């Protein structure tokens, strides 16, 4: 099964199970978890089910397209079921079968993983799901996001699409994965990896980025004051990505690092609180 068939199969599978198929977010995110379709929608009292592909942008992880296992831009498939159905694991395993993985022939294991994202004030418990020793999915029961306890516990499943494809296609290099007939993952992404690595590590303008961080931070605070959590949240994402770029440029010392992370976390908390407030108000309106 090639890369785009995997994505299509997952989309079909989760759509049949009541998920809203969202699209990748338009602002850079390091992981599908901080797409608002997961991060914000997992908060508050409303049930939610979604599935979508998320390009994961991690400037630090670029290797100029030379390393077949490290990329600054790769793909996750993100699923959230809120609240968690009791047979959530069986449903998840069904998605592997849908992609042609025979669970009786492979060794599928759930290996403890305590997920934590201090920048976003978030944590949960779950597993790395291993397919013959390859971590193909991160499975997390969210407990806190933006410093707030979740009201309905969501299950988050983040498939690492490249790793899953390596296992399914039996390849040793992501560049050799078949994306579509006649096109490899490398055809699609390799040159982009090279150029972006140069940008991330060498060209991204440190002074400008530092200024931008401050601007996004100020704009976020302003939008929170205007009670607009959704646009405010985009500013959190922009802060987070700007910080990641500065980090890749080696412009963040250990001390400053903690302070940047603390600033993003403060923003994330304020936005999360405001989001939940508005959600609860709107539910109360409906009830009234």
């Amino acid at each position, binding site marked *: 099964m090639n890369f785009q068939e995997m994505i299509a199969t997952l989309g079909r599978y989760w759509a049949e199970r009541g998920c809203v198929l969202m699209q990748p977010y338009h602002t850079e995110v390091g992981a599908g978890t901080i797409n608002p379709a997961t991060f914000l929608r997992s908060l508050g009292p409303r049930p939610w089910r979604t599935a979508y592909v998320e390009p994961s942008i991690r400037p630090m992880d670029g290797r100029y397209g030379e390393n077949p296992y490290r990329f600054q831009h790769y793909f996750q498939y993100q699923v959230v079921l809120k*609240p968690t159905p009791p047979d959530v694991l069986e449903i998840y395993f069904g998605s592997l079968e849908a992609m042609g993985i025979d*669970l009786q*022939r492979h060794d*599928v294991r*759930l290996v403890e993983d305590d997920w934590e994202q201090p920048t976003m004030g978030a944590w949960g418990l779950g597993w790395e799901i291993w397919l*013959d020793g390859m971590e193909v999915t991160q499975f997390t*029961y969210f*407990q806190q996001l933006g410093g707030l306890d979740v009201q309905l*516990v969501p299950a988050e499943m983040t498939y690492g699409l490249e790793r899953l494809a390596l*296992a399914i296609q039996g390849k040793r290099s992501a560049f050799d994965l078949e994306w579509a007939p006649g096109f490899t993952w490398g055809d699609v992404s390799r040159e982009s990896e090279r150029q972006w690595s140069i940008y991330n590590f060498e060209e991204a303008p440190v002074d400008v980025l530092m200024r931008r961080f401050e601007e996004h931070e100020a704009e976020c605070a302003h939008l929170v004051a205007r009670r607009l959590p959704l646009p405010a949240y985009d500013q959190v994402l922009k802060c987070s990505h700007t910080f990641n770029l500065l980090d890749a440029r080696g412009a963040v010392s250990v001390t400053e690092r903690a302070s940047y992370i603390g600033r993003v976390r403060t923003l994330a908390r304020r936005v999360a609180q405001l989001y939940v407030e508005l959600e609860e108000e709107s539910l109360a309106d409906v009830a009234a």
Partner: protein
Amino acid sequence: MPTLLLEIGCEELPASACREAEAQLPELCRSHLGVEPTRLFIGPRRLGFFVEDLPERAPDERRRGPAERIAFDEEGRPTKAAEGFARGQGLSVEGLERSEGHVWAHIPGRPLAESLPERLEQVVRGLAFGKSMRWDDGGLRFARPVRWLCAMLDRDVVPFEVAGLRAGAKTYGHRFTYGAVELGTAQAYAPALRQAEVEPDAEARRAAIVKALPEGWSDPVGKLDEVVYLVEKPVVLEGSFDERFLALPAAVIVTAMQSHQRYFPLGENRFAVVANGGDPDVVRAGNERVLEGRLEDAAFTLERDLGVGLEGLAARLGSITFFAGAGSYADKTARLVALVEELGGDEDAREAARLSKVDQAAELVREFPDLQGTIGAEYARRAGASEAVSGAIEEQYLPEGAGGRLPETSAGKLLAVADRIDTLNTSFGLGHRPTGSRDPFGLRRAAIALCRLSTEGGVTVPTRLLDDEVAAFVEERFEGQLDVPVEFVRAARRAPVEDLGSVARLAEALGRLEDDQLGSIHTAYVRASRLAEKGNGVGELDPALLVEPAEVEVVRAVERAAPEIRAALDDDDFGRAVTAAAELGQPLDRFFEEVLVLAEDEGLRANRLRLLADVRDTVGLLGDLSQIPR
């Protein structure tokens, strides 16, 4: 007697949670069922136990009521309080017992079968985990979601409910090869699960894994204890990786195999993996691909580091912060070189110090943080450094704990000492003193390492290299490290010795003194120092004023002992120093018996106080013996 089975069916539990449950279940059973389980069944998807000798009745209970003086009035008649308590317990006032100043209700245990449902619920709810979670609105917190309960007393289901889950006779076999298994009796549990491709007994799984591991397996990081709880149906497979990866540092390969993949190294390019089932060829091939991917990734990173080169990495240390306020790793390196020099290090030790932190700039250390030091040593070797230098770099973080291995090379020991001194001095200087259980900079561990390096490691660590607060903090660690009562350490800490090891050896020498020897110099020291305080401590001893024979004897004893103690201390011969001081005991006993120190004659009195000050200072060479309680 009937057999009771309880199984809590879970989504895959972490090994640590399995061990917590394993430790708690016996006590939980004892308190709620009155007996310990006869067998435990602990695995990733189930926490279970058998009780094969369940008593007919629950244990009797004693419940405490009001104090006797409240329960009975002055005439000894029961009060309203006593009547109310008795009624609440379903007893008459006459049925109350009186002891320990209270009245008590003795409640005979009910037949267990009646109360079993609520008792099993308490067992389930009683399990507590270091990390726990919610998964629905049932309100139960557990290490991972609980999905079923199976509870049987012989042939009957024990009906109980926890957080919306109802116990039944159903359990579940292997996740991917077997579904639900209906039990006819409690006793059928283990055989039925084995039929369903699950070994429920952790020890049986461990034995099966150990038996199946090929000859020559090793477990340097200690993963077996985790793997036992990662699988229900252990299948041991042997795999190998491309020999070209053997060019990687061995520690990198072992970490990738063990810490990341939970494999067991078999030597060379071979490894064993414990799977939970599957087609052996498929599972082996997949695991080989994964390990090779990890090694390939490490090889890329290694290439990049080697491309930068040892000196290139060293040049980057200036831009890496050691920690806030403590400068960069380049600053730290300069301090280490100076310290090693102060400690008497030779050229190898100084070179090792210069290169000791180079690997902090290496990308491979970012990927394998536990291998700091090891990777630095490897890079030094590849750049042509001598074994004395690279060995020292490798050993700088030893010992890792109170029982860990010590460095073996002399340069390694000095570097390890210098590293700890610098970390302690800079941390304390910035106000990062450990408080209570909080010690984020690992300063207690660093201090204990310094203690061990100065004693077992034989490194002379001059106390003057430590800031005052640090010296006190480190010396306090000896109180827990040495096999002598803490007061001996406190006494020795006040001796005029100049290095850490001397404090320890003096404390130990004091601890070895026979009780009567210690008794007499202890008394002498305490009395002498107490009295000497009354003197003005000036002037010389006047031989003409020594009128009593006992005085003269003490003077001679001090004249013999003082140089002997000093010489022994200079030779680091603390046993001899202590023995020499003990010689003062008898003459002083006699002195205090026969001589009136506070004589009426002012001259005699001053001279005697002067003599006692000498005694105090001489015995005081061994420390402040008044710290030792007698």
